């Protein structure tokens, strides 16, 4: 895939998601303002937003974009990387909105909060993406796995008190989740 195709897919889908992006950032800002302290709020709420944003990427929401991408000479893994970046951008911006609002309400450690929430939100979003091209029990299983990833990230950073451990966990889960999404997209028949 050329860089042009990659950015064209990301740009077209981000334009389509502009309203979702605004709602996600607004919701995160409100919750961040109300619950500025602790890591439970940013990690679990932003993870929830990540799951929702990932799930609304399901086929059919932008049917003409789906068809264009499916009929274009692209490979599943390449397409997966471009498509996965969109919910990750939305979730990251929502996390940033949460942290900025929380800081306005008295949050002391902005950088640590953002890093801890970001490291949870990205693998959660990527894991939930695989649910979009599955149905029934498998779809529920991927959503449950995404929730579990969020809980493990929280445990690593709060209970174990290790941000590097959380970052390592996030990198590992993100790698396998993106790979799994790419493999599934390559086999996916859009009917």
């Amino acid at each position: 895939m050329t860089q042009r195709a990659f950015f064209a897919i990301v740009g077209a889908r981000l334009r389509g998601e502009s309203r979702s992006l605004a709602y996600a950032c607004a919701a995160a800002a409100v919750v961040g303002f109300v619950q500025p302290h602790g890591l439970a709020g940013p990690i679990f709420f932003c993870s929830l937003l990540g799951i929702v944003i990932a799930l609304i990427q399901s086929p059919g929401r932008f049917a003409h974009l789906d068809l264009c991408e499916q009929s274009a000479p692209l490979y599943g893994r390449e397409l997966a990387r471009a498509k996965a970046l969109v919910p990750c951008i939305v979730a990251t911006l929502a996390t940033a909105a949460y942290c900025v609002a929380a800081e306005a309400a008295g949050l002391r450690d902005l950088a640590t909060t953002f890093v801890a929430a970001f490291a949870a939100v990205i693998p959660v979003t990527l894991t939930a993406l695989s649910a979009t091209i599955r149905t029934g029990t498998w779809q529920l299983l991927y959503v449950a796995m995404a929730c579990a990833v969020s809980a493990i990230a929280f445990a690593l950073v709060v209970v174990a008190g290790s941000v590097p451990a959380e970052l390592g966990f996030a990198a590992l889960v993100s790698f396998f989740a993106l790979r799994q999404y790419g493999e599934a997209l390559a086999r996916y028949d859009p009917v």
Partner: protein
Amino acid sequence: MREASFDASGAAVGPITLDVHSGEGVARVFGGSREATIAAMLAAGIVKATGGSVLIDQYDPRVQSAHCKRIAAFVPHAPLPLPDEAEFERYIAYRAALWDVDSMRAIAQAKLLLERLDGVHEAFAYPLAGALVAAPQLVVLDRPQPAYARQIVAAIGPRAIVSTHLSAAAAEAFSDAERSRAPA
């Protein structure tokens, strides 16, 4: 397509056998819209046959999917309403980026094509203009509007055409239009 069939996701289509060359057109009638769409997607290499074989030029979509998609263009049944010319240009530039062709040239060609599709509702003309951006050798039309058969076939030019339909009358409209187009 040789005895090509698709049987997955609760849908079964085929077996379908058809052979189409440059400048030729094949119009097939199907019993339902889902079957027609799946057959069109099989012909364009978007879905892979679960039985039989599909060859687009010399490529098998099951193993050389990207090559097939450079040769075949798919025009969906659903219209694509775009609010203004800027949005149309953005759509063509997006498609040009996916197929890695020059955006400005693609937009200019698409606008010329729209002029040739005079009389065709814009929402039906846009997807066709977008599909022809990458100069495909085969154009697959999923349940195209029979009222626009002559304009659509003329705009596609000397390329091979496969179209799926729900009625014999619609298929006949395209067959008539193909008979009257210039040979390749």
